[in-house]
């Protein structure tokens, strides 16, 4: 059952990429001159924006696992958190590659100038770089090697990454901050849940946070 659902969820997570590719290559994928037309007048911008959107969405989905499993009392959701987190990283890689390759065409000079001087790129870059250690240490082996507490502390970086992601979005829009604020509101709610849990002195959730679970570690 779980296995089956995991496959289903995995495939679902690839749907946004599939749709992007579908629209990018269009009805005549062998004819290179038609590439991108399905994504409108500026396909590069569309790719950059859609991959950015999905990076942020997967970060938020990942962060919603703990509140959802607690509030709905569905602990088994934890089994999907790593997958969602890795998909956030996956779409982040696509987003970053779009920027480096099709937007800047490997113009290292401009990329470095952007990372240092354009503050929205600086925070976006920070958000992305912070996800790298999390992706690397996402395996069971690494959880064991680091120990639950340290692993958990390290993986709190996802909060910083998500906050930086929202700030990145907020700073890159020219005037209309509606969408970044919507994402920001979702993130604020997800973080508020953690604050509430942490402030509640006799919180069951907190005491369970580091309790062993079937030989592995349950990390909230």
């Amino acid at each position: 059952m779980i296995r089956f659902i995991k496959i289903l969820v995995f495939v679902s997570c690839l749907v946004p990429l599939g749709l992007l590719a579908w629209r990018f290559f269009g009805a005549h994928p062998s004819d290179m001159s038609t590439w991108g037309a399905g994504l409108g007048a500026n396909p590069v911008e569309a790719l950059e924006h859609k991959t950015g959107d999905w990076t942020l969405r997967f970060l938020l989905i990942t962060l919603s696992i703990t509140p959802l499993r607690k509030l709905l009392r569905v602990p088994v959701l934890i089994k999907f958190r790593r997958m969602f987190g890795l998909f956030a990283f996956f779409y982040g890689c696509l987003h970053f590659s779009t920027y480096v390759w099709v937007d800047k065409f490997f113009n290292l000079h401009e990329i470095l100038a952007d990372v240092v001087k354009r503050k929205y790129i600086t925070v976006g870059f920070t958000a992305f770089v912070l996800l790298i250690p999390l992706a690397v240490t996402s395996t069971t082996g690494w959880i064991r090697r680091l120990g639950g507490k340290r692993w958990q502390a390290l993986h709190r970086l996802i909060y910083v990454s998500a906050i930086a992601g929202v700030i990145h979005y907020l700073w890159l829009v020219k005037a209309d901050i509606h969408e970044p604020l919507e994402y920001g509101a979702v993130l604020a709610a997800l973080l508020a849940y953690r604050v509430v849990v942490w402030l509640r002195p006799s919180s069951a959730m907190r005491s369970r946070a580091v309790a062993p679970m079937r030989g592995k570690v349950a990390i909230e």
Partner: protein
Amino acid sequence: MLIKQSADIPSSEITPRDLYLNRRRFLAGIGLSAVVAGLGIKELVSPSSEALATEKIDGIQKSAFSTTEKVTPINDVSHYNNYYEFSTEKEDPAKLAKDFKTRPWSVTVDGLVAKKQKWDIDAIMKFASPEERIYRHRCVEGWSIVVPWVGFSLSELIKRAEPLGKAKFVEFTSIHDPAQMPGQRQQILNWPYVEGLRMDEAMHPLTLLCFGMYGASLPNQDGAPLRLVVPWKYGFKSAKAIVKISFTDRQPSTTWNEANPHDFGFYSNVNPNVNRYHSQAHERRLGEFRPRPTLMFNGYDQVAGLYSGLDLAKNY
């Protein structure tokens, strides 16, 4: 009493039961996650390319100012519009501007002029014979297009407005009509949209008073019925759907400058060396994959004289 605080129960006891008994809740949770993901898949439809409701313009003359570069397809120019009065999504104005009313339309000319006037759009269009001006058009966001605009030099209108000697700037005000323009129902920018030029910039023959493109009247989403085209400045300087032209002795306060003075200056000349909003050294011509270098004044070197002695890094 059988009330037990959950904290008293060792987690080792709870976990397995939760894990294996709550299949229904679990499915609900998965369903919820799917809904969250599904919220994102709202952008399924491809941009449409329905016929444009425009009218052919007769007697268009060619212009020596035109570039010979490849013209951007009309479908791109009419379906990729930064027109915040309608929407901040560039695909939307093509749909939302469909029923926008461009007749009757008049333009008020006031401020430091001999006589305040109100001109009908159809009268304005007869001030001079229409020319086709194929211009490069560079957006501050880093993309560019080549458009065959139709119109004549703004100077033709300014001459007829008879500005006083004191007039040093021209201010252009776009229409304010939230009933027709859904984007104006939100305070994203300070409506109405206001743009401005120095008098000598406005009088420069390149500065185009524009009412058509691709041989026909302007599509609504491209600024019908009357707009400005200032090809050496970033696109937002070229105000759309103009209803008022005022002559002043003070530099007008312009909409984007009010929204973000750090990024968007009054001059906003295309300049690959001044990187306020974005890195501006390169641009992507729509339809091309590789970025190309951005040219000073968007390649319109003939305007350089307007700015001699002016520090363009400060006056951006």
